[in-house]
């Protein structure tokens, strides 16, 4: 916290804003002046990108945040976050420098105006995107028996976003200590929200069973009223939904205010901050304003003096705390010989739940006696009651919860029932989970999402896909896909306990029943350039002088093994098989070292091979001067038909793989 004239910090380092009018006015005025400074800097071309000021909404933004008295209370905000942030942190220089892209910025220039993370304050630029995460953070606090709460700041425009409703529902069924605050200023960017909001705003909160209030920031009793609301949520152990009517005095960002003058005048006349100032003795107000003016000038000077943010070493990936070879890692108790993949995974989950209270397993229909759609979680909910959660059908919401739990220090392992549904989680992964570790040094998101993947069962176009090619291209997402030759339990335990970044853990449906047995497969030597490779090893079935190498992964391996057998017997070929488990970040150095000299290479995947994993491997090889012949065998970019007889003509078949490999020899 900056040395703010007239304000002290509490034990957690947050500004203490007393309930007295002079304090409230002083701080509100500071916020307004900061916003005005930022707009001025914007006009001077000194602001990086865009910004969204809270002019006119200062008191609304202050009211809830100042009422949070516990050190572990959380504030999640959105693009219009400056008032929240300043009330939470008192970091005026930090904010202005951040918006200006300077080293002294509170996030080092990485986040800019919208994306801030500071202790338990976190804002992000996707409408409603933090709401599920808030539920996760709140759930963690509930599990910790903490008195702290989570506040999620929303606008009335956010009420169009689906994820928000999933979050309200989740908060309700789990009784999460969370307060959703709708700052209702009647306008979403340039659109009047009377045309975008169906029905009643408060009724939304009530419909989900949340305690609901409606306040007005023009009411002089706003701050007391808000304090009461916060206390009710904290002590009542029910989630809340608070609507505060307010008005935006400034544009959405800059220059995009198309409201008529008459409306702007009315807003100006209503302005609660001005009204608050008017209620003070004039001398008091003037001296406050003078002090504030001087302070803001100091802030401006300090921020402007800070050099432009610069990478000492531009990052090649987000994995700064790459796992080192563990000296003694958690090991799963060995499973029996001759047990199938499903049993191994079940044991791994069992071990994870048993070895740490922080492990949470969540997903749809996991509880006993059903035990999950593919029975991977059978027996767990009975044994670990309260930590194996069957959720509503809310993939995006659950992903948010998983992110929140992991940020709060839990080890959530989420199950998505079919990998096809992972697309419902995409925004939470792409714009949230993988962004946090990359943007904010101190935020860790050690989550695991498991999903059964693949076809061959006739389940049809939306229950048969292998979507790894989409998710490997999400920067910062680790994608692991084991086979029945891999120690899948080891892979899952490593993903959960050893790797501190978001992991997508794919499992092929047809491998669940296969016996897990390495057979002739041995781990490939790792290369220290390959991030996380030792946690998720590549396997290889060697031949002395291979005529062709087939690379594959996941559920294709049994078919590839059959193909190799045929090729060796009928085509007199020596066939080497190489099977990575880590698809992203791809262990390029070790793969290239091994494949670089091969004369013929076939890569077989069940996913669409256009723009896929095989394409990435071949491109990497090409870059190092690969001179052999190579071919990709995958699924064409068409939906996977349901009839078994049609499905087997679309997915790679033994015949097609054999023919394609043999064609490498013509």
């Amino acid at each position, binding site marked *: 916290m900056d040395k703010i004239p007239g304000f002290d910090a509490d034990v957690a380092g947050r500004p203490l804003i007393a309930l007295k009018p002079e304090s409230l006015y002083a701080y509100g005025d500071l916020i307004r002046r900061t916003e005005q400074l930022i707009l001025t800097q914007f006009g001077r071309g000194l602001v990086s990108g865009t910004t969204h000021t809270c002019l006119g909404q200062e008191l609304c933004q202050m009211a809830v945040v100042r009422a949070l008295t516990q050190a572990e209370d959380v504030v999640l905000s959105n693009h219009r976050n400056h008032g929240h942030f300043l009330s939470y942190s008192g970091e005026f220089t930090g904010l202005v420098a951040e918006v200006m892209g300077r080293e002294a910025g509170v996030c080092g220039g990485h986040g800019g105006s919208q994306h801030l993370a500071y202790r338990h304050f976190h804002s992000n630029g996707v409408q409603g995107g933090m709401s599920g995460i808030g539920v996760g953070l709140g759930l963690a606090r509930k599990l910790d028996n903490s008195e702290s709460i989570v506040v999620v700041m929303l606008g009335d425009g956010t009420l169009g976003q689906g994820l928000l409703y999933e979050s309200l529902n989740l908060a309700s069924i789990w009784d999460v200590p969370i307060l959703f605050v709708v700052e209702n200023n009647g306008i979403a960017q340039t659109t009047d929200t009377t045309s975008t909001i169906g029905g009643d705003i408060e009724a939304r909160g009530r419909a989900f069973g949340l305690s609901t209030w409606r306040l007005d920031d023009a009411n002089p009793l706003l701050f007391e009223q808000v304090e009461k609301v916060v206390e009710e949520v904290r002590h009542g152990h029910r989630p809340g939904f608070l609507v505060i009517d307010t008005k935006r005095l400034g544009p959405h960002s800059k220059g995009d205010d198309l409201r008529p003058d008459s409306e702007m005048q009315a807003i100006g006349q209503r302005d609660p901050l001005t009204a608050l100032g008017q209620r003070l003795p004039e001398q008091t107000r003037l001296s406050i304003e003078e002090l504030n003016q001087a302070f803001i000038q100091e802030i401006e000077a300090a921020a402007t003096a800070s050099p432009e943010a610069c990478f000492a070493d531009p990052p090649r990936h987000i994995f700064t705390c790459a796992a080192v070879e563990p000296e003694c890692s958690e090991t799963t108790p060995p499973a029996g010989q001759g047990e199938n993949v499903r049993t191994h995974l079940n044991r791994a989950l069992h071990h994870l739940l048993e070895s740490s209270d922080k492990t949470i397993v969540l997903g749809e229909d996991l509880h006993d006696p059903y035990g999950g759609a*593919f029975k991977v979680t059978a027996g767990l909910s009975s044994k670990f009651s309260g930590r194996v959660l069957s959720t509503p059908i809310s993939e995006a919401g659950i992903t948010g919860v998983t992110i929140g739990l992991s940020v709060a220090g839990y080890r959530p392992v989420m199950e998505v029932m079919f990998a096809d549904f992972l697309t419902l989680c995409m925004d939470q992964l792409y714009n949230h989970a993988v962004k946090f570790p990359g943007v904010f040094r101190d935020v860790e998101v050690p989550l695991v999402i498991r999903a059964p993947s693949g076809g061959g069962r006739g389940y049809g176009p939306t229950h048969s896909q292998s979507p790894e090619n989409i998710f490997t291209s999400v920067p910062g997402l680790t994608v692991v896909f084991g086979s029945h030759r891999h120690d899948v339990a080891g892979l899952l335990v490593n993903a959960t306990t050893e790797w501190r970044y978001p992991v997508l853990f794919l499992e092929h*449906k047809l491998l669940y029943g296969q016996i897990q047995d390495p057979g002739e497969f041995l781990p490939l030597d790792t290369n220290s350039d390959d991030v996380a490779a030792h946690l998720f090893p590549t396997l290889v079935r060697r031949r002395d002088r291979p005529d062709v190498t087939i690379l594959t992964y996941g559920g294709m391996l049994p078919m590839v093994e059959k193909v190799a057998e045929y090729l060796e017997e009928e085509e*007199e*070929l020596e066939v080497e098989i190489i099977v990575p488990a880590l698809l992203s970040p791809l262990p390029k150095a070790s793969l290239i070292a091994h494949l670089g000299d091969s004369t013929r290479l076939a890569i077989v995947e069940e996913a669409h091979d256009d723009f896929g994993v095989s394409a990435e491997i071949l491109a990497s090889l090409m870059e190092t001067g690969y001179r052999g012949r190579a071919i990709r065998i995958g699924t064409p970019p068409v939906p996977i038909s349901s009839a078994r*007889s049609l499905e087997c003509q679309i997915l790679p078949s033994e015949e097609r793989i054999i023919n394609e490999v*043999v064609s490498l*020899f013509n």
Partner: protein
Amino acid sequence: MPHPVYVPCVNINDDIVLIVDVTVSAGDTVKTGDMIAEVETDKAVIPVEAEQDGYVLKVLCDVEERVKVGAVMMWIGDSPDEPVPELVSKVPAEESSGKSSLQPTAKAQVLLDKHKLDAGQIPHQGERLTVRDIEAFIAGEGSTAAIVKAAQVDIQQGGEELLPGTPGSLRSLSAEEHGMVSTVTWHRDHAVAAYLEMTYDQQAWEDYAAAFAERHKFMLSPLLPLMAYRLVKLARDIPKINTTLVNGQKYLYDQVNLGFTVQVGETLYLTVVQQADAMDDRQFIDALGEVQRHAMAKKLRPDESIGATLGFSSMARWNVSRHVPVLAPYTALMVAHSAPPGDGQSAVLGASYDHRILSGNDVAGVLQALTQPPEV
């Protein structure tokens, strides 16, 4: 009418079940609810019951067989002697992985490409052309498809012999050994081989070869290649010696492919210079040299080891004073050059010939001409 009994779907995750028991057979009567079979999945043993009264027409599965869920396992008819329908699937049968008989294996294809061979020109032992077939072809001494085939029959016939009484061990023939057996077998079974020889003074040839060597700056005497070349030229003038017999008819070759024996280690190769008659002497010597080099390196190209129309053999290197060579398949004449028994003594020039084509007189004339180098 016949009613199918389907392999039941017990749980969605199991595509295949095991037939544990079949309690009826064709001809039995069943009543609705009677157990007719038992199947086992990952999890449990489930009875299969008759869904109607009737007669078992046909049972399509066996105990201990793994069957696909949804397949027909049995037919039950309303009467005991109804025909059982054939189920016709419109799904194209999986592309047969049986290949046409000449389709080479992938590894064999690599070899074909490497040696620029055509699969069609290579005989194969099994259904498909294999690496072994190609290696045998490449190493084979002038074997053509027909010869190897013929020889195969001969060799196979030998399978009825008793093993010798003295202790020993059986081993298969190598490709080269195979080729040798094919050659001598053709000589025995097809040609009517006779032999002639005459003595001569080698001096004229030695002088001729020395002069040639000096003119062309050769280090070694090209005597034998020059003598072989003379034979090529003679063949142009006397087409009869460049002829063979096939199926009772004379086969007159359009070109002279000169076969020249080369011993490399334990292997005797008949190296071939194709179209030797189209070359001048220098070209021929160079071509022969190259072919011999390939033979030394055991890297003979197929066209360098097949198709001889005329042969030349020398054992002078080993001081052999007389040898009666085996005729290469489909040749009528193989000249045999030997070393003079001692200094200053006459050398012997001989020839094996196929008496079906050539007479002693023909051959004598050739040898006579051959004992003299060409007019300078």
